[in-house]
């Protein structure tokens, strides 16, 4: 370990905000693979527990396959979640960078780690994932940064999610020690069959036990082996054991109860069946009380070791979760859908359930993008470096980065800088927003309340928020308008490669609803959205499109294949998982299936989306 306190020359330099470590290429980030994973765990554990925040950043094999799969300004939180869910279920995390850090005035003390992950089917059960999708552009970009795919695939750390781990435990059929919870307290009256069953098993156990303990009596080898076959004795480790087959959970209880009579020497173990439930009860013979304790300890360590092996990288996730520290991310919706689906459980079908489930594991998640919103509009916040540069130009908020980690030997192939940048950005933002008290230790509560304001807001894309925007922000961005989903209509079925401007021109003269102000924006090549300025016009337009009364130029366009649908159809597209590569195809398919089966109408009134002109320009590519 390099000493945690930097030598004084650096401290002096820190006044001018430029330390040597300010250059991202010299940030020492500890690279962790299968080979050094176990030895680093305790160190990571210490850093996590002593940190104030933990920054996370992921490197995935892809994000969205078609332009419309990308989370955009016209998405409600719900559709945004569904899009993120779709990506998280298909792509894979190859690098997971975590950085526990402390904020001390204008100093960030960070301990960045970059984990190389690869899902390896170590148990031959198709877990953690049977297959995953890669996007060539992502891989090429990673290759350009010098990413070593061989290290990743040969030496990446595998993992299992919590949900997978519990199914694996059952499927591996490891004997489980009986805890008191398994023994049911209620014991209903014994039926005749139960009594017969108990007595039969009891006599078997008795005979077997006697045969085992009476080893001092010299018997012929043949007799011993025959007896073994007859009594069904086995070995469990070095101890003799006997398996009692059971047909129901009731019988399990009966056997356990019966075995209590032999509790001085016999330890009951439950053998789970492959499909869940119990297959058998195994009684293990111990020689003494000490031996019994030893066996119990052996079982515990065995289980512990095996769980550790099975969990792999999830150990780190569990550490983070157990620490209950606030997490800082840059693109939280994307990152945490990935984290949830890979390390916790399959993603739930809607946003609310997702947030509830995630909160259980990570109570506080802070998105730096959301903090940025309080500062003002930043045009394109997808790039952290650009955001840092932007803040640097605008505010004086020097942040010194201190990374006491050991430097890596292979400096050239260091990845995971983003996580340190997130720390840096967060530090800057905290100092600008004055939410960092000078001494964090003394006023944890204050920090918590300050941070709470920003925590757990996942859907914080530029131009949208779940909280009402205040006047100030509106003043800064007069292009931004709140638009109700009701005023949005999806249009498709026009000539491909048409521009929004041309489409708008075509629409303008086609019908009287377009006499009022309206806006057109391309979603992808096949589909556009029309936003009506005046409420109610969208319904008029939809009705016109579906009626025979359609006439004039609009009729001409409809005859050429123009179709229209409201926002609820789009929501249905996202929730039914029809992720066609062109939105037009997906809308068509949804309408077709909807015509057969009418479902409950979606409530769209409350959900509001934002549209900004700035993004309209973006789409005119």
């Amino acid at each position, binding site marked *: 370990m390099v000493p945690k306190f930097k030598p004084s020359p650096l401290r002096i330099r820190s006044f001018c905000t430029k330390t040597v470590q300010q250059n991202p290429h010299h940030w020492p980030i500890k690279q962790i693979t299968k080979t050094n994973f176990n030895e680093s765990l305790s160190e990571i554990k210490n850093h996590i527990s002593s940190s104030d925040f933990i920054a996370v950043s992921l490197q995935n094999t*892809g994000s969205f396959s*078609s332009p419309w799969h990308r989370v955009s300004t016209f998405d409600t939180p719900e559709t945004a979640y569904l899009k993120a869910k779709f990506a998280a279920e298909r792509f*894979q995390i190859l690098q997971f960078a975590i950085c526990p850090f402390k904020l001390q005035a204008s100093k960030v003390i960070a301990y960045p780690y970059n984990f190389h992950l690869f*899902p390896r089917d170590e148990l031959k059960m198709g877990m953690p994932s049977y297959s995953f999708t*890669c*996007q*060539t552009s992502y891989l090429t970009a990673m*290759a350009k940064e010098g990413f070593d795919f061989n290290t990743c*695939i040969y030496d990446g750390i595998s993992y299992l999610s919590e949900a997978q781990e519990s199914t694996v435990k059952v499927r591996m059929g490891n004997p489980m020690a009986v805890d008191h919870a398994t023994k049911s307290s209620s014991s209903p009256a014994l039926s005749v069959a139960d009594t017969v069953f108990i007595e039969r098993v009891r006599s078997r156990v008795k005979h077997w036990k006697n045969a085992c303990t009476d080893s001092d009596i010299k018997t012929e080898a043949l007799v011993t082996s025959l007896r073994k076959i007859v009594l069904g004795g086995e070995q469990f480790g070095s101890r003799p054991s006997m398996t009692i087959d059971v047909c129901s959970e009731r019988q399990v209880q009966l056997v356990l109860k019966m075995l209590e009579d032999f509790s001085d020497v016999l330890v009951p173990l439950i053998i789970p069946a492959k499909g869940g439930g119990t297959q058998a009860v195994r009684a293990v013979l111990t020689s003494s009380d000490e031996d019994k304790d030893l066996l119990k300890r052996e079982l515990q360590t065995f289980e512990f070791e095996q769980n550790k092996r099975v969990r792999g990288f999830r150990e780190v996730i569990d550490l983070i979760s157990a620490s209950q520290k606030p997490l800082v991310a840059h693109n939280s919706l994307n990152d945490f859908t990935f984290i949830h689906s890979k390390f916790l459980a399959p993603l739930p079908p809607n946003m609310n359930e997702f947030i509830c489930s995630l909160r259980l594991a990570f109570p506080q998640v802070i998105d730096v993008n959301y903090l940025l919103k309080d500062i003002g509009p930043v045009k394109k916040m997808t790039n952290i470096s650009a955001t840092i540069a932007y803040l640097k130009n605008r505010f004086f908020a020097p942040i010194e980065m201190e990374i006491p980690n050991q430097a890596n030997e292979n400096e050239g192939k260091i990845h995971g800088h983003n996580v340190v940048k997130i720390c840096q950005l967060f530090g800057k933002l905290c100092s600008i927003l004055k939410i960092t008290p000078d001494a964090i230790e003394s006023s944890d509560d204050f920090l918590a309340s300050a941070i709470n304001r920003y925590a757990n807001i996942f859907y914080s894309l530029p131009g949208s928020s779940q909280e009402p925007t205040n006047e100030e922000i509106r003043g800064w961005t007069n292009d931004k308008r709140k638009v109700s989903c009701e005023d949005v209509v999806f249009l498709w079925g026009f000539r491909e490669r048409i521009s929004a401007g041309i489409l708008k021109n075509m629409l303008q003269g086609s019908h009287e609803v377009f006499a009022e102000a309206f806006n057109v924006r391309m979603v992808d090549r096949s589909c556009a959205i029309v936003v009506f300025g005046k409420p109610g016009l969208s319904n008029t337009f939809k009705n016109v499109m579906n009626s025979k009364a359609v006439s004039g130029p609009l009729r001409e366009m409809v005859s050429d294949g123009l179709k229209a649908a409201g926002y609820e159809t789009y929501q249905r597209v996202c929730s039914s998982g029809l992720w066609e590569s062109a939105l037009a195809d997906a809308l068509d398919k949804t309408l077709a299936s909807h015509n057969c089966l009418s479902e409950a109408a979606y409530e769209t009134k409350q959900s509001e989306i934002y549209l900004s002109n700035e993004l309209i320009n973006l789409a005119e590519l």
Partner: protein
Amino acid sequence: MKKRWPITILYRAFSSSTTSTTASFPLKHVKKSNFDSALSSLRHHVQAADFVAIDLEMTGITSAPWRDSFEFDRFDVRYLKVKDSAEKFAVIQFGVSPFRWDPLKQSFITHPHNFFIFQRQELPLDGAAYEFLCQTTSMDFLAKYQFDFNACIHEGVSYLSREQEDKALKHVNSTYEDESLDSWHSLKEIRDTHLFNIPDILFAERMKDRLSEWLGGLLRNRDGGSEVQPSFNDSKQQFETIFFKMRPAISLNGFTSHQLLLIQLVVRKHFKDLAYLRVSGENSCSQNVIVYIESESDKKMLMKEVKDEQKIDAEMSIKASIGFRHVIDLLSSEKKLIVGHNCFLDIAHIYSKFFGPLPLTAEEFISSVNKYFPHIIDTKILLNSNSILQQRMKKSSTSLSKAFSVLCPQIALGSKSTHLALQPSVKVEVEVDDIRSSNWNSGVKHEAGYDAFMTGCVFAQACSHLGIDFKQQSSSENLAHNEKLREHVNLLYLSWTNGEIINLSTGNRTSESLASNKRKNHYPKILFECIVIVWGFPSHLKAWDIRECISKVYGPTSVISVYHVDETAVFVQFSRAEMVSKFLDLKGSLDRNNDPISVLHPLAKLLEGGNTCAASYETYKEICSSTVSKVLFADQAKAVGIKWKTKLVESSDKTKEHESLRKVKAVNSDPSCGERTKNKNFDDHPCSFNGSRRTNTNLPIELLSEIFEELTDCENISHRAAVCMSFMASCHQNFLPSTFISSSISFLHCSHNHHQNLALSSNVQTHKHHQMFLPQLKESRCASTSYDGWLLTLPFDRKQNLYLSNPFARDRIKLGTAQALRVVTSISPLDPKCVVLDIHK
């Protein structure tokens, strides 16, 4: 990636003692950097080659466990599965090894090439991003053999399929021809609103001054011939005078996009003899220039010139990104014999990656493959279908590495041991970048280039065993037309699992001929009309539970087999096709009703949870054809959009069923003269099913046989015979030898008396006899054993009919009047391949 077992080679041990040195120079790896040179040398080698061996490494094989190859795959379903695999996974390595016979050296010369390929999105084309699937187990397998992923992703050769190329070219054409000059010129409408802004107006004024200054200087210059004024030296970086298409021009640098927009506006508003252009410069960054034009026609000419140039540039970049497809085009245009090992999937990959999207049906696919590659030989089929080669292979497995070590030991072992010299061997000399060796061992297994080399060696050796003399083979003659090979050309395994072979040139499908088939037919012929797919049932139900559940309703012989597709779905094969619709009807009505009767119904166990769905085989095909791939079948069905629980079979299927029955009759040689009669009365079946059987099936098979030895009661033996189908299914699933089945279920019968309904069965192994009641035996004389309990009943009266009957299923097959004396059946009479021998007096 292919699952091949690594050869257990001892060559390392041998090579030390042999005198001939094993050359171990590396394989020729082709990446981006050396692709062009490798391609030109490969071109010569392929042109001179007698045949070209190929092999592919992929990122995976099946996108979901249920997409694996099953015995229950009809050929169209099999194709859909192959199609799905080829569409989803990427090819990351491509081995090409052209083999040429050298008459001087009396040996083959080969140049194995190992191409790393990786498709990058080099053209700004579609909206959809290029993506591919990786199967984790396959990646792990590749990693185990030290596959170099970095070489593939960092330096792999990219490619464009023919279809992608056409699309890109069309796109270029439409952008440069579709739009008129004017609209192309003013791609972006500039709104005047920008000029309401004071800073913008000032900037525009300044630009106007500068441009007129420049223009003035230019005109003066032309008239007076003096030097260009150094008037804007302060902004020389921003305004650089250049010559653009033989015309004086200004190149604009260092302006923001908004400023450029304003300049564009100024030029258009105030300067008739200036044109603003945005052109893509060299290193692909765009360049903004203002060009001096003499007249409107000059402007048009300039525009056209620029446009043409850009179009040519765009086309050039498309041509440049064809990349690896040049190799495929070369193989296709040279029409050489292509040799692969179990290569149906490989061919599908080649088609989808380098030609275009795979067609929807196997027939279309085959006919277009045949167009591109007229001669393909699969060494796996060659080895399995020819008896000489089978002998050579000594019945060992026909995996590539095994075949290589058995057929070409001199290469595989890197030595010429004396005992191997007895075998005539074809010499193969390897040439890699001017290094030659006749004992080459690159030391890298599971590299596509080396696997292609092995395939070629196996093929060359196999040819020589077939009696093809390369010494007499003239070089001009195509090897594919050799009469000894002719019957093997263009045959590919559609599915190795059930030995279905497809002929690429005719499109005919055949099953592997029985004579050469080492695998025994465990199942009777699968009739797809008899199959129902059931999914979403409670997860604790296993195949046997489901079988029992359905048997309770339709009788014990109604279900021939239950086969797990995955943990959430099963195929249920009924004994007769009409039971499919009956079952679905019943299930549909049970789904609708929730009264106590349906709760107590035997099927209720299967329907527990309310998510159980069932449909006919056609639905399975439909689900397979979807592009979605969920890991579990039940999730897949949901993702495909199936919302119903039961899909009833339409009446049109009934006619299909009749057709298929007719087909069965046509195939059956002798029983066909009769008709199948069915006894509908299942309920009073002699075999009562009790719970004990359930535990029987859970027992190990060795124990099962012992248990049956203990059974003395004749009814118990009949039970045993009745369950034999399920044994077979379980035996098959556990890959147990088929001998067990035939020996333990041997069943001997004979009847004596005129009017007795009792039959005496005797067990050959125990020599015990049992009497059993068989109503079918009335008026019949004799019954003989056959496949799983089928009896032949011979009437005393010659004029009466001869039957094959199953006492347990109560099925009878009429064989016509009893002119025959003896009848022998080798397999189940339900199997269309069943042959009945009868001897006429």
